[in-house]
């Protein structure tokens, strides 16, 4: 019999197929931390047929908006989302890479205006090439890959 790593949630959002080691980054992208009220459980390094190892995040009592969830695709392009109601999956979908992200990524160019003291949010244009995700800074044009390094 299959053993559950973390218990089922009654209501909320389950994020599955996160590359191993990136669960914390997923929470960071969603802005969930010790100051927010949601109960979060995480399973790290779970054995996966498809991925070898993966992470899973469960956020109780919160239906995260699809637009927010799609930001996860920056670091977990194959993540799947299950919206749970009364212990049942109400909706299941794969994250979709957003075309533009604001205030999520940091430009590595220290001479970019987005890193100055101006009232400014970083803006990046995102695209996938094969399995790799790239982003281009709206302000200075710098291109970045391996986006997990550049999360704000």
């Amino acid at each position: 019999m299959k053993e559950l790593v973390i218990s089922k949630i009654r209501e909320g959002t389950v994020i599955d197929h996160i590359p191993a080691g990136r669960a914390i980054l997923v929470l960071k992208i969603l802005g969930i931390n010790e100051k927010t009220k949601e109960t979060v459980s995480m399973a790290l390094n779970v054995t996966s047929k498809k991925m070898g190892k993966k992470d899973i995040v469960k956020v109780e009592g919160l239906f995260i908006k699809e637009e927010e969830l799609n930001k996860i695709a920056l670091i977990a392009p194959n993540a799947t989302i299950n919206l749970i109601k009364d212990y049942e999956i109400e909706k299941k979908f794969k994250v979709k890479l957003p075309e533009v992200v604001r205030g999520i990524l940091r430009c590595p160019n220290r001479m970019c205006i987005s890193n100055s003291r101006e009232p400014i949010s970083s803006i990046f244009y995102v695209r996938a090439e094969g399995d790799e995700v790239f982003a281009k800074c709206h302000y200075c044009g710098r291109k970045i890959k391996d986006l997990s390094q550049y999360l704000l």
Partner: protein
Amino acid sequence: MKHLISIDDLSKDEIIGILDKAEDFEDVALGLRSCKILEGKILANLFFEPSTRTRISFETAMKRLGGEVVNVSAQEASSMAKGETLADTVRVISNYCDAIVIRHFLEGAARFAAENSSVPVINAGDGAGQHPTQTLLDLYTIRKECRRLEGLTIALVGDLKYSRTIHSLIKALKLFKNKIYLVSPEILALPEEFLEELDGNAEKAKLEDIIESVDVLYVTRIQKERFLDEEEYRRVAGSYRITPEIVSRMKDGAIILHPLPRVDEIDVRVDSMRQARYFKQAFYGVPVRMAILSEVML
């Protein structure tokens, strides 16, 4: 509202339209014809970095077209910036004028300024980023002096890493079919993202191998202010120099351009040779900027 922030903002047809318009303004730039189409308009020159040619040619262009100019010098701009953000400075100044020309040391500053301005913003150089008005005058010079913009062999020489002039020019050259050679010390090679933009139409070369085949030799200064490490600057400065001997190997009709100022990368003895067109290039900045100003303000 029209801004000019990056050469990418313009299509090939729009670029050609500006060059054609500049051609019409050439006699006005020379003072041979009066044309006061910008009478009653005010241009604010907002320079956070020093500039001579760009600022003065914008000022001349505006005045030739009957407009007024308010200059905010590097010193005034930086003292303003001490207590105020660029966003606020631009919000205030855009209430005083009909267009802003901005030069700033941070990349993307002009785009950010445009987002906070109620009038058109023209980028006159943002750090190592873009310098689109220089590019338009470079294209204008090539078209005037070579009588075409396509089918040329163009060598870009010098600081290809930090030169915003080069970065802008490369974006424009990809719209026209030319062979491009990149000549630079390895440490100042063109950044990967610009190389990608050229899509295989450019190759790295040594000056001595290609000098006889080029139509345009575009030389840039190694910019001391872009180096964090002075030792690194000293190592590469003077690593290339265009002398009369080199120029004498160039083919008939070939030209030498330089965005100026030069330090010692072009020997002064080259100035009197027929290939030297960099001072003419500097003059062309006026009709081209007249075309740009009329484009954004009318």
